[in-house]
């Protein structure tokens, strides 16, 4: 792999950039791999990467029915934070956040991780209590956060109206080390490194059925022929239900559309990420200058990946109230992503009823921030055959036992 650096760019500039190699290869598939991962989104690629890096397993194929990183990895609002209330969530998201800190160096790919700080506004007494509780929990979880005053909110983000007539800002949960990253780059950076380790990223190969024998995985049939494997890991977000059905099991998942939008680019006006859960909106400013805004999800199953206007309307209304200056900005683009929601809105990283078939899904609205941690934990599970300490609370069994991981309790609805 050709190393990326300023020096390499200067060198290439002298030969019109003709020396840049493919970021990832498009190899001819082998008949059999040690591990096949279905889904070349962030989570699938990260799983492959840590299988190689942490466990020395590189005879790996990552299958993708479309283009790598073309799903939710490239459709989210790029927020990275780990100020979760429940221990299992805080553990995996904090693992993820800390991996993000060094990921650009690790992958030799600038992901533009920007730890500019994330604040979650408290606008009701209920939220105040919820966030104070979260700050307390975070302190014990080793996640540095603090509960800050309205004045501090104003200082960190001067464009917030802290004294709105309906929902004045009463305080906020502040995670200074949260932030954003360039979403596409995460998928591309992992893909490049996986390809470099000799793994096969096979795009435009759709899985059509799962091959199993005596309750044990054998491989997959794809639009490009059968591919055999010792272990299979399904990491396909909203499409998990269909894959599970092929494997003969069902998942507690529903796929719904989540809405997002960006404004036209403007000069920098905010240096932090702000989430306002009472009014259902969150906003940050991208390096390009666009205000990136996330909103609500539909309450019904949907695979259309289209924007829907009434959620946008609700979100923008709330944000105009919270950030009056955005009223004169213009919405440039809106879109929808299909997110997979579980019964307790927490993800699933689990073995399945099919031996040596593993699943990682259900990230709902919070998947992007979890990519490195999720990949790390899933790789550990796939390599050893058993979920490790990060993944084990997220097993499928929890639904049967009633051992839920419910994050909505701290008033946090959106991720």
């Amino acid at each position, binding site marked *: 792999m050709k190393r990326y650096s300023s020096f390499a760019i200067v060198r290439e500039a002298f030969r019109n950039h003709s020396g840049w190699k493919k970021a990832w290869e498009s190899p001819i598939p082998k008949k059999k791999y040690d591990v096949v991962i279905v889904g070349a989104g962030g989570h699938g690629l990260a799983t492959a990467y840590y299988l190689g890096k942490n466990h020395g397993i590189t005879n790996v194929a990552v299958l993708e029915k479309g283009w790598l990183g073309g799903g939710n990895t490239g459709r989210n609002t790029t927020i990275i934070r780990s100020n979760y209330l429940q221990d299992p969530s805080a553990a995996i998201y904090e693992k993820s956040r800390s991996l993000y800190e060094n990921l650009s160096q690790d992958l030799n790919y600038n992901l533009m991780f920007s730890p500019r700080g994330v604040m979650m506004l408290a606008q009701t007494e209920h939220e105040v209590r919820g966030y104070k509780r979260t700050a307390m929990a975070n302190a014990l979880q080793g996640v540095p956060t603090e509960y800050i005053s309205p004045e501090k909110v104003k200082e960190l983000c001067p464009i917030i109206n802290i004294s709105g007539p309906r929902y004045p800002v009463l305080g906020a949960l502040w995670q200074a080390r949260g932030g954003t990253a360039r979403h596409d780059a995460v998928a591309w950076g992992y893909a490049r490194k996986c390809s470099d380790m000799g793994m096969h990223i096979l795009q435009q190969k759709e899985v059509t059925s799962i091959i199993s024998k005596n309750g044990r995985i054998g491989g997959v049939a794809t639009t490009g022929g059968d591919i055999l494997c010792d272990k299979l890991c399904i990491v396909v977000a909203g499409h998990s239900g269909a894959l599970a059905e092929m494997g003969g099991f069902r*998942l*507690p*998942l529903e796929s719904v559309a989540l809405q997002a939008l960006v404004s036209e680019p403007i000069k920098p006006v905010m240096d932090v990420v702000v989430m306002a859960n009472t009014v259902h909106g969150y906003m940050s400013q991208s390096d390009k200058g666009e205000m990136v805004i996330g909103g609500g999800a539909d309450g*019904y*199953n949907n695979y259309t990946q289209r924007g829907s206007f009434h959620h946008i309307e609700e979100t923008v209304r709330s944000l105009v109230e919270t950030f009056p200056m955005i009223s004169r900005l213009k919405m440039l683009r809106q879109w929808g992503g299909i997110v997979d929601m579980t*019964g307790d809105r927490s993800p699933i990283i689990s073995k399945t009823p099919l031996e040596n078939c593993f699943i990682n899904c259900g990230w709902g609205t919070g998947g992007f921030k979890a990519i490195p941690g999720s990949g790390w934990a899933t790789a550990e599970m796939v390599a050893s055959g058993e979920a490790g300490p990060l993944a084990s609370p997220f097993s499928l069994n929890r*639904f*049967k036992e009633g051992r839920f991981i419910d994050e909505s309790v701290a008033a946090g609805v959106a991720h």
Partner: protein
Amino acid sequence: MLLLNCPYCNLSCEETEFQAGGQAHLKRQSVGSSDQEFESYLFARKNPKGVHFERWQHVNGCGKWFHIARSTVTLEIFGSYSAQTLSPPKQIRVNINKKLPEWRWESSK
């Protein structure tokens, strides 16, 4: 913004008048059911790329719950009907088969 037909009002109204209530025709499991049955009742959901039977309430209208059959891919709605049934009425199935001859009703278990 979907357009939904409330079978009680017999009116086609905007989605914002309604609230979605998830998969229809679930059979309630209670005391006496196995852990597996109870888990399925609460959490296992059909998530098809295709026809989905679902519950809606005309919450900002007459307040009635009803069922619809809707494609999760094209969003076509094949009809709405009373929530007080255990399976979709024949007419709804006929409507679906007109478009999708291969489709068959499978009760949710």
